[in-house]
């Protein structure tokens, strides 16, 4: 009993501390994000814990223009390389993704705008002019991955576990001067699984971003390295990777020096294929948006199965040469919850992403017979 009391005191002390070291919680879900010790708001910056490594993806998932900082922490061992799927991470791994916005104006009024991801220097990312929204934890426990959403408090000092998610009203100021109010929606824990259970039959949840093709790019955080090579050098990744550049490579969707099709397919891959794959939640639709899909499976001249209002009155997912007749473009443009794609994580239209897919379809040849 006394031992238990002592343990409680210790735990309490840990909770009160400003500097919890990175910690694997093997079965309990701490109420405060700071108890994980991965990313902590302190001294005007988001501080990364000791051994917590930031990473980024060639093309990220669109989430209402939020900027994101991703981190990986592996207490023991390393992830095992796989060519196509997310790497196999050991028990104890904690991935985080922090969502934040550039603030429009001087004080926080819920007004946000576009921005570019900025970098981490000396283990910290400055928060000046930024508003933290949420940090999602993916933790690899003995029974598999668990997904936990934490919502940052008003004072921006810590984030609190919010398993039922949240709705935060914001106003987006676009660069062309348009302003639109929207509901920033933090997913609930089941909705986390809705995207991360990339195989809907096993329902096991898994990371989506840390796949070889998405990480295979010059490292933003250690500029001399290819990011995959950096993971190997840092001991985060083992397995049969002799040269990071030789594996598949997702395109940077904004890099106009790359082929249009490569940018469009990467965009569809990262935004859609976690559901639209042959074993995914959206295989009910027969639409497959993984990088190697082709023909009707990719949507060319494909009639919808159960789209309902998602058809937008258009005949096929992709009508070559005609983005304005293609369901894919309609579902990306609309913000009607009953029709939009993705179904989760988006309340605004990604104008630039829509433009990319529209241009790709506009340049396709052929007709649907």
């Amino acid at each position, binding site marked *: 009993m006394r031992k238990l009391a002592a343990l409680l005191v210790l735990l309490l002390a840990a909770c009160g501390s400003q500097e919890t070291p990175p910690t694997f919680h093997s079965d309990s879900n701490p109420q405060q994000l700071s108890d994980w010790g991965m990313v902590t708001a302190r001294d005007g910056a988001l501080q990364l814990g000791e051994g917590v490594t930031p990473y980024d993806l060639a093309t990220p998932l669109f989430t209402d223009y939020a900027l994101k900082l991703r981190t990986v922490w592996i207490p023991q061992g390393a992830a095992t390389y796989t060519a196509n799927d997310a790497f196999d991470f050991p028990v104890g791994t904690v991935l985080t993704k922090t969502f934040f916005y550039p603030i429009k104006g001087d004080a926080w009024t819920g007004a946000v705008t576009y921005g570019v991801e900025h970098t981490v220097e000396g283990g910290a990312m400055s928060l000046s002019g930024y508003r933290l929204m949420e940090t999602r934890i993916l933790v690899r426990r003995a029974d598999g991955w668990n997904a936990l959403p934490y919502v940052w408090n008003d004072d921006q000092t810590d984030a609190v576990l919010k398993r039922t998610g949240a709705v935060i009203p914001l106003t987006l100021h676009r660069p062309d001067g348009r302003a639109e109010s929207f509901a920033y929606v933090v997913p609930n824990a089941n909705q986390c699984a809705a995207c991360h259970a990339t195989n*809907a039959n096993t329902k096991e949840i898994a990371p989506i971003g840390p796949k070889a093709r998405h990480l295979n790019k010059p490292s933003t955080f250690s500029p001399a390295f290819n990011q995959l090579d950096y993971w190997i050098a840092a001991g985060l990744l083992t397995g049969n990777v002799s040269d990071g550049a030789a594996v598949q490579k997702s395109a940077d969707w904004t890099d106009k020096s790359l082929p249009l099709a490569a940018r469009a397919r990467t965009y569809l891959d990262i935004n859609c294929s976690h559901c639209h794959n042959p074993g995914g939640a959206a295989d009910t639709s027969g639409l497959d948006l993984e990088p190697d899909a082709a023909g009707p499976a990719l949507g060319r001249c494909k009639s919808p199965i159960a*789209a309902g209002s998602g058809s937008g009155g258009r005949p096929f997912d992709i009508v070559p040469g005609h983005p304005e007749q293609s369901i894919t473009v309609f579902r990306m443009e609309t913000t009607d919850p009953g029709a939009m794609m993705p179904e989760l994580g988006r309340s605004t239209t990604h104008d630039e992403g829509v433009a990319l897919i529209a241009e790709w379809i506009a340049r396709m040849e052929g007709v649907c017979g």
Partner: protein
Amino acid sequence: MRLAIIAAAALMLAACGEQKTTSTPADTSYQETLMTQLLDAQPGDIIEIPAGTFSFDRSLSLTVDGVTIRGQGMDKSILSFKDQIAGAEGLIVTASDFTIEDLAIEDTKGDALKITKGENIIIRRVRTEWTGGPKTSNGAYGIYPVQTKNVLMEENVAIAAADAGLYIGQSQNVVVRNNRAEYNVAGIEIENTLDADVYGNVATNNTGGILVFNMPNLKQPGARTRVYDNDVFDNNTKNFGHKGTPVASIPAGSGVVVNSNDQVEIFGNRITGNKTANIIVASVYSSGLSQDGMSEDFDPYPEGIYIYDNEMGGGGKNPDGLDLQALKIAMFGPMGALPDILWDGYVNPDKRDGAALPLTEILCVQNNGAEIVNFDGPNGFKNPRLAAGEHDCALEKLAPVTLTGPLAE
């Protein structure tokens, strides 16, 4: 902490339970309670929904096997999604051994109740409704189990879905009985499903009453559906489906429609007053889909269709669509009516030994002299003909569906 949450939830539930059943406006405080219960559910749990109207602004979801969600009645426990801002369904369930009963789901932005990839599913006395009546802006499906196995849907009510009221897709071993579907585009739709018994249902005032369809590009083609002892009448609501969706091609006034599906038995139903036709048998070629967009292994021809002993009448008087109107006038005059059964006449020219099947393996009708018109779809309606004599045959009857495991009766 967990205990505290459960205690708090219990308190809130108790509070909710004291409400008057007729309470409007909707109560939003319940959202957090129910979401937490769904997240924390353990196998064997029964989540009770009290009487009252509860408002939700986001989808609900359940991923735990073995859970029952139970309300106080489809007119008492009402989950309203009128103010929904996010989520493509009202409630989405990805779990097995699931039962939901005695509640209503209203005015969702997308589908009302979707259940995917589960086994042993019971959906009973659930009402899904868009309360503004039939509108294109309504959600697509009322009750929508898809890729499920061993499923019982009974005594549900589905109203005003912009696609199908009760829709079972890509599933196996299904019983759909004693439900009521009205003012939907499709009342009841069985799609790419193996072994379904559909009986004792009422389908009225839909665009099409009961549909048995196969769609291309899916992993599982459907077969073996029995449609019997249903009341399918006056399904004459103008098609309000979204263009591009498969059901948007259903002519208003369709009673029972078979499209590209095989081994479908339609018997002992009362099918009346459907103004295009009481029964339509057709290929996907008659529904305007792109042939380029069809997977190569897809079989678009309905085969093994057996229609017998239905009570039919009063149909075909005012068919929907120019082709069918012209057909009616040409064959039966302006005051006439199309016969009870329409067949589009598409056959696989290369089904067996380089030839088509005999008509007696494609479509058999023994229905008290009911007439069939083969409207010669392949040749653009050029040589339509009355064809009952060519289809006077019997097919082997299908075995009843036997629900298994926890659903065994």
